[in-house]
C-alpha cells in the first residue's frame, strides 16, 4: 500500500498499479493453464494468504477477479473489501452471500451458515482456484453461476 486517506464515508487505499490485468480475463482468454503454470501462480497466492493470516487477517474473497498480474508476470492479491480480522476484531462483518456472479463458486461450506469461520476458508479457495486454473472451470460449476451446486 502506498497511501491511505479517509473521506466522510470511506477509507481509501492507494495501491500499486498492476498493468498485467486480472486472472479472470487471463483465464478466459487462455482457457486453462498447464499444471506448471498454475503451480507458479498458486504458490504465490499461498504465500500472500500466509502473510495475511500471520497478521490475523482472513482474506475470504479468493477468486480469479481478485488476482492481478504485474509486468513481470508475477501475481498479487487485491480487493480486501471482504477481509476480516480474526478474534472478533474491528473487521466488517463478512458477506458470505454472493454479491455478484462468481464468488459463490469459491465460498467454503462453513461460510454459508456460520459467520465464525477461520483462516481455513482461504485454503478452500486455493483448492477451487487450483482446480479452475487447470481444468478451465470451477469444481462445483453447473453452467449457471447463480446455481452453484454448493447451495443445493
Amino acid at each position, binding site marked *: 500500500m502506498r497511501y491511505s486517506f479517509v473521506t466522510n464515508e470511506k477509507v481509501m487505499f492507494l495501491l500499486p498499479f498492476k*498493468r*498485467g*490485468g*486480472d486472472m479472470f*480475463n*487471463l483465464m478466459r482468454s487462455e482457457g*486453462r*493453464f*498447464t*499444471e*506448471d*503454470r498454475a*503451480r*507458479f501462480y498458486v*504458490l*504465490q497466492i*499461498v*504465500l500472500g*494468504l*500466509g502473510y495475511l*493470516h*500471520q497478521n490475523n487477517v482472513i482474506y475470504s474473497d479468493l477468486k480469479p477477479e481478485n488476482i492481478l*498480474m504485474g*509486468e*513481470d*508476470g*508475477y501475481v498479487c492479491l487485491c480487493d480486501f473489501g471482504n477481509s476480516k480480522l480474526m478474534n472478533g476484531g474491528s473487521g466488517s462483518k463478512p458477506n458470505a452471500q454472493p454479491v455478484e456472479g462468481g464468488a459463490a463458486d469459491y465460498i*467454503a*461450506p*462453513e461460510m454459508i451458515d456460520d459467520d465464525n*469461520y*477461520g*483462516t*481455513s*476458508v*482461504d*485454503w*478452500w479457495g*486455493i*483448492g*477451487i482456484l*487450483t*482446480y479452475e486454473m*487447470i*481444468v*478451465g472451470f470451477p*469444481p462445483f460449476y453447473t453452467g449457471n453461476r447463480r446455481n452453484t451446486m454448493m447451495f443445493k
Partner: protein
Amino acid sequence: MKKHGIDISPECVDFVRQLLEKDPEQRLGSKHGAKDLLEHPWFASLDVDKIKAKKIKAPHIPDLEDDLRDTSNFD
C-alpha cells in the same frame, strides 16, 4: 489421472482433494497454515525462496503497450 480429457498429476489431485475437505478442521492448512500447503509434494519442484525473490522466470509475460497509461488489460 484423466478427467475432462486433461492429464493431471496424482500430486495435484491430492493437493486439491485435501483442500476441498468439507470439515475446516481436517482441511490442509488447518494445522500449520501456509506451511502445510507449501510442504505438499505438488510444490516440491518449485523453490519457494526463489519465488519470493522473483528469481524464477514467469511462465507468461503480459502483453503491454509502452505507454504507461495503457489500461488495455482492464475492462
